[in-house]
């Protein structure tokens, strides 16, 4: 199983800096997801890893060996494309055996490999069809079979599921993870869908504007994102901006807009520091008791039915508009009703206020 290492990889297209001095390691046998909004340079990065584009500068090592001089066709890898690109004039089987065919393998071996990979993706019964006769999901499975037929230990997936319906997407996500595990591959998977990244990968790298923002396991990124950008891009968050006014016994008092105050764990911040407090919608509580601690008053402005939960849109006394997700069994509130929002400090994320401003720091580009 190959281990990949990028060193200071940079790619320019004219004046545009698509990838900016990226260092990245992918361990042997690891399933890595590269997650970022569109235009962040993640596809460029993966094309550089695969050898489709050369970087402007920097190194790409596989098992410690510089692979940049090696042409795309001589790299040992399987590549799955976002827009599928099955060869339309070849059948599913011919597509799947394209790799062995162009490498001049004997017919018996082509036959065996074709059978194996089509079985893996469960397409044997459609082997004689042309790509145009398949559903989108089956097409991408066939493309996956074609990539696997190269029998390489490195699988590169460039937004493999974005062109598919949501149901099919979830199903294929599961199959991908299973296959990579079973075959013992190293996989690099690019996506803009945070749910996909979290559910499929061992480790997720978050990219923004050509740079890596943060990396970690899916749980780390969701529960304790170090960067405020990640806290918003992975999952959802409610942000409250304020300034520390007092500090006492490991707690700080934060002054919010509208002369509202909250006491929260200090997180290393001192009086006068501008901070941002963040809670995910599902960690907030909505009640009617004004005497409870760590609460802010607000008014329900609307409700959105999410299926398993009910989302309340609440306008706080600070002027901020936040989302509170409650189970359906929870006590109900009416629109325009006054309510008390409870902010449990245990679930809070605390950040210093970004110097470029909160809106700028959360922007996707």
């Amino acid at each position, binding site marked *: 199983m190959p281990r990949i290492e990028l060193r200071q990889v940079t790619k320019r297209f004219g004046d545009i800096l698509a990838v900016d001095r990226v260092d990245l390691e992918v361990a042997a046998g690891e399933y890595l997801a590269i997650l970022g909004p569109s235009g962040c340079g993640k596809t460029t990065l993966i094309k550089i890893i*695969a050898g*489709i584009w050369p970087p402007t500068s920097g190194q790409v090592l596989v098992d410690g060996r510089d692979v940049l001089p090696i*042409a*795309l*066709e*001589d*790299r040992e*890898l*399987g*590549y799955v*494309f976002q*827009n599928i*690109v099955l*060869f*339309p*004039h070849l059948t599913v089987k011919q597509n799947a055996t*394209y*790799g062995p*065919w*162009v*490498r*001049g393998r004997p017919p018996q071996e082509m036959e065996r490999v074709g059978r194996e990979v089509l079985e893996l993706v469960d397409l044997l019964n459609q082997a004689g069809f042309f790509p145009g006769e398949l559903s989108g999901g089956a097409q991408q499975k066939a493309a996956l079979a*074609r*990539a696997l*037929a*190269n029998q390489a230990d490195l699988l590169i997936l460039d937004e493999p599921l974005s062109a598919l319906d949501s149901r099919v997407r979830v199903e294929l996500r599961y199959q991908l993870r299973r296959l990579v595990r079973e075959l013992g591959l190293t996989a690099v998977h690019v996506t803009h869908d945070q749910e996909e990244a979290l559910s499929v990968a061992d480790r997720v790298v978050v990219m923004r504007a050509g740079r890596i923002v943060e990396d970690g396991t899916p749980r780390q990124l969701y529960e304790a994102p170090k960067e405020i950008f990640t806290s918003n891009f992975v999952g959802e968050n409610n942000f409250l901006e304020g300034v520390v006014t007092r500090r006492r016994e490991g707690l700080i008092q934060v002054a919010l807009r509208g002369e509202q105050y909250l006491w929260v764990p200090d997180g290393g911040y001192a009086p006068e520091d501008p901070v941002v407090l963040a809670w995910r919608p599902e960690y907030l509580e909505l009640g009617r008791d004004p005497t409870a601690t760590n609460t802010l008053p607000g008014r329900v402005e609307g409700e959105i039915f999410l299926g398993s939960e009910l989302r309340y849109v609440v306008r706080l006394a600070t002027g901020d508009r936040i989302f509170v997700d409650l189970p359906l069994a929870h006590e109900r509130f009416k629109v325009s009703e006054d309510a008390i929002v409870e902010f449990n400090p245990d679930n809070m994320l605390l950040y210093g206020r970004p110097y470029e401003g909160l809106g700028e720091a959360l922007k996707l580009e």
Partner: protein
Amino acid sequence: MLGEGQEGGTPLRRRALNFLSRRPVIAGWYGGVLTYFFIFVLLPTLFVLTYIFTGFPDILSLLRIQPGALGQIGGAVLLSYQVAIIVTLVDLVFGLPLAWFLVRRRVPGKSFVNTLIDLPLAVPTAGLGFSVALFWGVTPFLMAADKPFGALGLVSTGFVILVLLHFTTTFPYMVRSLAAILEEIDIEYETAARASGASRLTAARTVTLPLFRSGIATGAILVLAKALSDTGGVVAALTTIGRFSTDPATCTASGDLSGTALIGAWSALRGMAACQDVAAELTAGLALVAVIMIISALGLLAVVKLLSTRAHIPFRRIFPIWERRLSRGAVPKIRDLSSFAFLILAVLIPSFFLIGFLVITAPQPTDFGVFYLSIALSFLIAGIATAIDLALGVPMAILIVRRGSPRVKRILDVLVSVPYVVPSAALGISLFLFFDQLRFAPVPNLLFLVTLAHVAFTFPFIVRNVVGALEGLDPALEETARSLGAKPLQGFRRVTFPLIKPAILAGAIMAFTRSVGETGATLAVAGTAIVTAPVFIVSLLDPANPNYYAAALATVILMAVSATAMLLMRYLAWRAR
């Protein structure tokens, strides 16, 4: 309502718009377009086929006075096809790498090469034939002192000079049409193939080429048709190397005559006072050549179409090591260099060789009055023909793409292409016969007939271009405009038209330049009575009284004017985008 507020400035204008958008009016317009197409383009094109029956006595009479005529016709048509097929194959071999290079590579100066390739298209083929023959050929009627520097003087046979000439006239078409379709093929297919372990060569031949076969068929048909139908260049080149002559005393033609050369020769003889006695026989001979060429051109079209749909991947076996070796290092460089060398040696230098000749040769007395008149006449005919093409071709294209059942659509599509592949000289004969037999009283003006002929063979350029653009356009765009309250005409004018304008302009450029450069159809319809610029150039090369200086001057001036017009149109098209 918004559309009306903007468009209908005055009540009169709004009412006119409403009227023009009414169903019967639009239907009438489409009906008119179709009627014109059938009566003035398609019917005359195929009319000559009936002549075999009606003109049978004349044919017999021709064979009596010129026993060798049948053999001459057969030999000429055979020569035409030999030349056309060889030219097409060689064009493909060198055109593919060049098209590939122009589409897939990002190199500075690419747009310059693009313009350079197009330039020979602006030169009338009669001028090109002269230029090519001066460069390659043995020139018996040129005084030694006037031999231009760099002239090779190698070729003395008609076959070779015609092959060389047609490289010049067809290679730009081949590269253009291959590049246009290659542009449409997603480069990701090649990337996917290479990521699966295919070398560039393997990827190209197993993936891109099979996807590309319709493009190759289109290019091949275009080149075949062009090589088969050119008259002016053929006559000019053959005359210059002394392999084309007409004898008014016996009313016969001799030399290495191809099909169109024979048409040119007999058309000229038919117009001469000395040959009025055998005019009917010459007409019969012309009709015979035309019939053979039309039928064989249609047959060839069918064969190429069939081949393109039936063709499979050549050599299913893969030789990975060899193909890999051929994909790297020196081989691709040699391939690219040789196709550039071909472009320079076989296309560019022969095209512009004339300019050098003009600089060194001594001026000869020239009748500039006739010359300017001929240029004005050429532009007048081309202008009117292009205008008619536009008025009829755009609705015709809309009709093909947006109306009717798929079957009607396919039939119309093929019918429109018929004048495309039929040699324009044969088309001219057909048109002449058609109107001659109709016996209009008074016999329609020759200029009018020539213009009609020019419409017939330039019409497909507009239709094809606009059909291509419309097919790439989402009909939802116009439907959206209609849903916002735009009348059909407004929807077209405000939404569709701006989007297909570049294609219309491109089609107009092609039609115009093609008309300016046309010799065969003009000769076939009017003999030498209507002297357009190419006819004038051909007449200047007459071995009895050659004026090479004037021919070169006329060609260069025409070259400059057409090139300017082309660059201007190209600039306009670019700005419209």
